[in-house]
């Protein structure tokens, strides 16, 4: 089962290696990991999608908590989340197929960001399922390359937050 956790870490050399190393050493499976700065220059945020059951996730949380530069851990399990994955994808697009492909792009509210003689590059954002559905639908045309950021997530406003 996929779970999303979000981890605030001190911006220090070696933190990423520490977190990634802990996952590897303890045999936890990472589905995706996205790192970026936050509004506070001293902190970065890692969004980690983990594969595992409740017990595994509990250990993941506790083991993350032991890493000294890890400041805070948010377990988004069961929360109402906005989740986004950003993808750049190159799809084979010979002239006779372009309008067909454009229709798909429009349906997904995706965006063409580059066009070459044989390929179009498309930017797709959205929840993972949407991004994956786009890849599937493009497969028959020929997918040359895919780059994804990995998922980031934020909970929707809750009851505590007015």
């Amino acid at each position, binding site marked *: 089962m996929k779970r999303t956790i979000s981890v605030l870490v001190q911006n220090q050399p*070696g933190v990423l290696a520490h977190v990634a190393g802990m996952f590897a050493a303890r045999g936890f499976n990472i589905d995706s990991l996205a790192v970026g700065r936050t509004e506070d220059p001293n902190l970065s945020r890692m969004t980690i999608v983990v594969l595992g059951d409740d017990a595994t996730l509990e250990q993941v949380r*506790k083991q993350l908590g032991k890493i*000294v530069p890890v*400041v805070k851990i948010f377990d988004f399990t069961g929360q109402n989340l906005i989740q986004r994955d950003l993808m750049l994808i190159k799809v084979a697009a010979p002239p006779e197929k372009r309008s067909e492909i454009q229709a798909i792009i429009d349906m997904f509210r995706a965006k063409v960001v580059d066009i070459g003689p044989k390929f179009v590059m498309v930017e797709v954002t959205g929840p993972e399922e949407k991004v994956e559905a786009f890849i599937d639908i493009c497969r028959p045309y020929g997918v040359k390359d895919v780059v994804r950021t990995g998922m980031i997530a934020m909970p929707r406003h809750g009851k505590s937050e007015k």
Partner: protein
Amino acid sequence: MENEKPTQSLSQSPPTQGTKKGAQVFCEILQREGVDLMFGYPGGVVLPLFDALYDSPIKFVLSRHEQGATHMADAYARTTGKVGVVLVTSGPGACNTVTGLATAFMDSIPLVVFTGQVKTPLIGNDAFQEADTTGITRPITKHNYIVKDPRDLVRTIHEAFHIARTGRPGPVVVDLPVDVSVADIAHHRGREEMDLPGYKIRSEGHLRQIKRAAEAINASERPVIYAGGGVILSDASPELRAMVNKANVPITTTLLGLGCFDESDPKSLMMLGMHGTAYANYAIQECDLLVAVGARFDDRITGDVKRFAPQALIVHIDIDPSSISKNVKVDIPVVGDARNILSRIIEFIESKPREAWFARINEMKRKYPLTYDNSSEGIKPQYVIEEVCRQTEGRAIICTGVGQHQMWTAQFYRFSLPRHFVTSGGLGTMGFGFPAAIGAQIACPNETVVDIDGDSSFSMTLNELPTAVEHKLPVKVCVLNNGYMGMVRQWQELFYGRRYSKSYLQNPSFAKVAEAFGAIGLTATKKTEVPKVIEQMLAADTCCVVDFHVEREENVWPMVAAGKGLHEMDGLPTDTSERV
């Protein structure tokens, strides 16, 4: 502790007014942290640090190998509760500390290990004696640092000590590039206060959980307390004893918990687990409540996890939330410092007779005592240990290597004092015993320190003999010499049809080896010689090694074979495996 080191000059280059080298600051901060002793070995990139130590009151113990230095510091920490400190050079020096770091990490021992590093502009260039020390040691340290900016030096050292000694203790590495050691710190003043927003320790237990734990104890008919290394780390032995006595509950300890309770007390079940006593293991399988204190449900004590303590409600007191429900599902977790929690739990405890339960336990003690056959002419290893225990009145600091001799020591030395048993439990590091004994003797000059070692284990680190001799340390070494890697041989006997593949060794005369290094060397080959030679050994005022030629194919019993339930022990006295 707060006394500042008088500003003395570096021997070669007297500093001009207002300058202070990183290396000098290093010595000052160590003193501020209360360090009066460190272990280690010099090399190129740490020469500025060693030069500053030349003028420092901090005592330095030079080992003969960096692994030895880390084990010495480890035993210093285990016997005193203080942080053990090590200083070594980059590359090969740092790499040689890896085994010692992992040993300390597995057993939660507070160390700060300073490693030299090539100068910052060269890092990553495969410079001479460069190794990625923080990369190599990350998974075997509680935390590690590389100081790339002299402004971070003071803060980093303070943080390293704080992290090593607080919470669940552990080793911390601080990698120091040589340019930081020679930088003028006066011109690089940075923030000195610690900056650890993510490092939180829960040492106070939650009152509701404490009450729930006490109620569970009060309600139980067949409770057992299972105490581990955490009790010793938190110096909670007096509180534990008070609680056990008030509640009137039988208690078993792990290998690392030995000494936290007096084994001569009738409530003691001694050690549990793979080579624990039959009555401790049966008590676990029959109990209705198991109270784990500072213990981590290691696979050597649970046997088959699915069948561990099948009838028990489980209470777990531990400072590290990740220890809780890691291997065994816990019903009542109490996160916090053992000493803190035990002293508060005791208020809510009611005394109960539990006659039926103690009767059952005493019956098991009668039926399945720890024994061995001592009728032969030859020397039984267990007998040597019993005799050492008798002559030291069970009050010596005992160190061990890893193997059969380690298990026999746990079984046949009667421990009654905390911080008196120094052994590598989690990593099981052969060669730990002798350097550990050196570190323990330096830490506790007035105590008798005996290393009960295996021939193969001792062979791994006997290169530290000159260290003991140089420092005039009266460390005693009992080599239980069976000419085998006995523990390996035992498994080959039991599980590999007696095919003793590469588990025997041709040993030197350990007595002559000792003499060559300037220590006393003795040999015993007959049972009748044992009491006398131990007397001689204990009377020696310098390092003394006794080579006991023991029965070669003795086995450690009882034993819970891999995958078996804790009650499925082999090698019981009557060999009637009791089903629960």
